């Protein structure tokens, strides 16, 4: 469904953020994109949704295909209409709009205007907290509530491919599990494909079919979620999943990499 080939991206014409990454999101699957800070995860998602220009970024090589069509260079609004929706990092809800207006904004490009009211109610079922706050200005919501709103807004778009950038940011651990289960459920009901970027690798891999790990603008490893989780080396080395005493070793390896 989505295929990224050897994509290279620079910011401000000089800062290299992606150094030729390739990845695939098959139809109907959830793919997790993991990696350390600054690895280029958000850049990848912004490239797919055409939003690089707003940050001074630009694709210099490689290509992005969606349903067999090359899509780099298409405007962000046209991409949303094609069915690609990015829920951006850092919530980015509209602070001056009410909760309900934010959800409506998510459905902006949808043609089936009559179903929107009903779908908002569905979002309220997944996130009952939002229902209580529906007429509140979104800027006055707590961080976690804003994050739920951001996810809800993405679901309102009913995209074919949903890109989620750190959906668990600022949400209580217990709720994170629940939200990810919800995401999986909605995916099955709506038949979406999902590419999710996460710091919380454990949770992301628990719902994902496939995982990619990025470092320094490159994909350093990829595989079935179960494989990644089962491989102790990988999960300790790159994802910080593991037991207590592996911490020291990890710190050492990180320093080594930096020096190199």
């Amino acid at each position, binding site marked *: 469904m989505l295929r990224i080939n050897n994509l290279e991206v620079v910011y401000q014409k000089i800062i290299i953020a992606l150094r030729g990454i390739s990845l695939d999101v098959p139809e109907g699957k959830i793919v997790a994109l993991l990696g350390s800070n600054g690895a280029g995860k958000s850049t990848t998602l912004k490239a797919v*949704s055409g*939003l690089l220009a*707003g*940050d001074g970024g630009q694709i210099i090589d490689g290509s992005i295909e969606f349903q067999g069509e090359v899509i780099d260079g298409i*405007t*962000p*609004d046209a*991409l*949303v*209409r094609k069915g690609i*929706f*990015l*829920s*951006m990092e850092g919530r*980015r*809800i*509209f*602070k*001056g*709009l009410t909760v309900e*207006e934010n959800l*409506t*904004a*998510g459905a*902006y*490009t949808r043609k089936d205007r009559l179903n929107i009211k009903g779908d908002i109610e569905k979002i309220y079922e997944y996130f009952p907290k939002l229902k209580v706050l529906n007429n509140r*200005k979104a*800027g*006055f*919501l*707590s*961080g976690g509530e*804003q994050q739920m709103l951001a996810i809800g*807004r993405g679901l309102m*778009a009913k995209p074919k491919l949903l890109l989620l950038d750190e959906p668990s940011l600022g949400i209580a651990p217990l709720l994170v599990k629940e939200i990810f289960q919800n995401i999986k459920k909605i995916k099955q009901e709506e038949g979406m494909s999902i590419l999710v970027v996460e710091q919380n690798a454990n949770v992301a891999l628990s719902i994902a079919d496939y995982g990619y790990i990025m470092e320094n603008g490159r994909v350093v490893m990829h595989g079935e979620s179960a494989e990644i989780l089962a491989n102790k080396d990988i999960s300790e080395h790159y994802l910080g999943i593991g037991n207590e005493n592996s911490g020291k070793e990890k710190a050492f390896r990180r320093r080594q990499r930096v020096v190199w």
Partner: protein
Amino acid sequence: MIFFFQMLINGIVVGSIYGLVALGFVLIYRASGALNLANGEFVIFGPYICLMLMTALQVPFLVALLITLIFSAILGLAVERIVVRPLQNAPVISVIMATIGLSSLLAGAVHMIWGHSTKTFPPVFPQTPLNIGGIIVTPVYLWSFIVVLVLLIIFSIFFKYSKIGLAIRAVADDQQAASSMGMSVKFVYAATWTIAAIVAAIGGVLIGNINGVNPTMASIGLTVLPVVILGGLDSVIGAIIGGFAIGILQNMAGGYLDPLVGGGLKDVVPFIIVLLILMLRPHGLFGSRGIERV
């Protein structure tokens, strides 16, 4: 006392028109952060065209007004397309400078086409003054007020409930997030410039009916600055209330103080008020620093 009410009513009517024109100004500022310093010229183009249609071509007022609004919409669209859009990725200050240039250009065009003598509208509204409890109200004032009120109501409904209104507010809030929703920022910019040009033209036609038309009307563009600064640059409600406030204070100053100092105070008063308000409230009466919640 009658004199006081007379001044009050004049102030309310003129102020409501300020509010309407300021609305367009605020809209552009909210969507793109740019100040449209050619707003005054947007105001004078409308009445001149309307007047020309009515006198030279004998077109009835409402038809002339409609054509004027269509023309204004095209003017707004053209300015956005030709002047603003090429500067989309330039600093906001470049856009502001460009509007200053545009303002001289349009002002020059007005002088060239229509000269600088004052022209009066043929009577559009009924002429017999109304006497409301001793206060004389000319119908043109009453009608202007009604028109502005209706427009303001239509606009608030439009912003609150229409799809375009939602997109304008979303783009004003967070441009990149709005484009990630599939909203076209270009379309929103075009819409705000179009609306600004239309409300400016309507304001101009109303004022033209009250005072006659001449190129100095462009100074309303300057008067609108205190209005929006008073209301808070980014607040639509603030613009409307600011409009009333400036209109009333200006007319009071004109009525009571001008005779004492020999005139001229009327035009300065808005700026004095704004200076005072800004000392007390740097963000204007209704302006926000944006809702911040961490």
